[in-house]
């Protein structure tokens, strides 16, 4: 026991000098969230899996491909994103856990006591999730490219960053990783349940697209066309839509993709402000 019963009244918390504490705001909340994220092993396991998928899938494809014909630069860039579906799921799990773990463990009470601004905490969490998504995107792509540069050259194809469609594919795909992180953070706040948030994303990614595409119903087809992955695909498409084909053009694809980050996040903010912690 460290509490010697002193005769003179000591500082209650035994602080030899005055404790310096600064106003709790966004910047410090971000720093706190960063410490929280990096002090959990699960964070790094998910990052490692995401990078492994990012690099591994295109490497397997390139190593086993014999002839890709005369592919455009944008299509070759697309090869580097063959692992994207897995990356998106893993980033979503990472983002969801950043928020749901707070509610499932009761840590949220500490978090919102330390930073009373609910929007401030949400912004800080979104920032950290976004930074992880960006980092995974950049490191993943750079590594996938570096590892496969030789293989692609052997197949007689190359990537030209000066090409508009190529650059568009790169930016939209990188953006989609960040969008999924935001979507997951927002779902985590809305549902406050890890299983709920992750299942929702899995459903949107893996279950609904297949189901909605085969249902012979226009509304269902449209719902399928505006799911986040479909919107991202539409945004990178180089060919215009065929007449009568249900789907988004590339401009709307980008708008809808961004909406998947913005709208759930706005909902999360409203919910977080309205509900008790």
């Amino acid at each position, binding site marked *: 026991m460290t509490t010697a019963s002193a005769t003179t*009244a000591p500082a*209650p918390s035994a602080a030899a000098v005055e*404790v*310096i*504490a600064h106003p709790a705001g966004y910047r410090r909340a971000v720093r706190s969230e960063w410490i929280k994220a990096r002090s959990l092993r699960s964070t790094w396991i998910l990052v490692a899996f995401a990078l492994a998928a990012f690099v591994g899938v295109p490497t397997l494809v390139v190593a086993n491909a014999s002839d890709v014909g005369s592919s455009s630069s944008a299509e070759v860039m697309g090869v580097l994103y063959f692992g994207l579906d897995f990356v998106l799921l893993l980033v979503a799990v990472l983002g969801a856990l950043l928020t749901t773990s707070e509610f499932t463990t009761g*840590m949220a009470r500490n978090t919102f*006591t330390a930073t*009373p601004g609910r929007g401030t905490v949400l912004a800080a969490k979104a920032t950290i999730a976004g930074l992880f998504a960006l980092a995974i995107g950049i490191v993943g792509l750079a590594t996938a490219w570096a590892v496969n540069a030789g293989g692609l050259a052997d197949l007689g194809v190359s990537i030209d960053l000066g090409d508009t469609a190529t650059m568009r594919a790169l930016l939209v795909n990188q953006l989609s990783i960040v969008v999924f992180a935001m979507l997951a953070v927002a779902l985590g706040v809305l549902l406050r349940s890890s299983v709920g948030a992750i299942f929702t994303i899995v459903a949107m990614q893996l279950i609904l697209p297949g189901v909605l595409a085969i249902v012979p119903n226009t509304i269902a087809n449209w719902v399928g066309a505006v799911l986040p992955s479909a919107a991202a695909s539409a945004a990178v498409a180089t060919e215009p839509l065929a007449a009568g084909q249900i789907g988004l053009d590339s401009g709307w694809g980008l708008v809808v993709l961004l909406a998947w980050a913005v709208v759930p996040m706005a909902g999360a903010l409203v919910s977080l402000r309205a509900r*008790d*912690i």
Partner: protein
Amino acid sequence: MIEATNLSKKFGSTTAVDHVTFAVQPGVVTGFLGPNGAGKSTTMRMILGLDRPTSGQVTVNGQPYAKLVTPFKEIGALIDAKGVHPRRSARSHLRAMAATHGISDRRVDEVLELTGLTAVAKKKAGGYSLGMGQRLGIAGALLGDPRIVMFDEPVNGLDPDGVLWVRQLARRLADNGRTVFLSSHLMSEVQQTADHVIVIGRGRILADASLHEFMGAYARTGVIVTSPDAARLAELVTLEGGLVTQLDHRERVSVTGLDARDIGRIARDHSLWLAELRDESTSLEDAYMRLTADQTDYRAGVPGRPAPHSRRQRSDHRIRHDRTRAFRRGG
């Protein structure tokens, strides 16, 4: 200082806190007493802005919690000892909390030392005992060296050493002019720590007084007398102005109006046998239980007894009753 005005909280149709008004003063330890489910935790969560009041308001040092610029300087709270991510180490947890206020790692190590957690600081919080969790919660509450500390059931799960430590800490904080607000469902705990008590039951304030006033108002101060000659002694005591109440055993009575010294003298003068003569020391506990008896949702099935608030006590009462009956049959 914490000030609640007409504070209410409803969860659906259930009223957890019902138009509560109170002030927690600096420089004293205020005990917040009530049976489980009385509204203590809900009130504390509203103080911290975690739960929104249905009506009324509560301020911390004159401001609603959400408006505090540097909350950790104003108030440090232990709300839920289990409210820590189980796979994060205690030190990382505290560093993350400290980072929200730019509080240094040195201070983190100080509060770890102060709460006796230094040796286990790198261990995952999920492996902590309830007592260690309480200490971690208290460490977090002390990070900003706050003017108010508020602990919800702080001695829950602590070993006797830890209980004593929390009492001493609360005392020292109050002696330093800080506001100390502790909740407990145990009168005995608050009795030993608090200067002031606020009693809550079914969401309403039942008493708000200094411990001294509370004892004066609610505690029966009497002398417990056990004597095989109880009947004769009772007559003599009554003659001298004492008021005698029969207790659970025919040989045991409670006397008010005369002190133990007088009763001892009467017994000696008339050569009566005293088996037991003592000041009633559990009277405050009884007073608290009487006060909250109607407020408890789960009563023990012993008629005429205040509702016990713990299983342990309930079984103790039963045991005593059974023994009495056995004694009667035997005699």
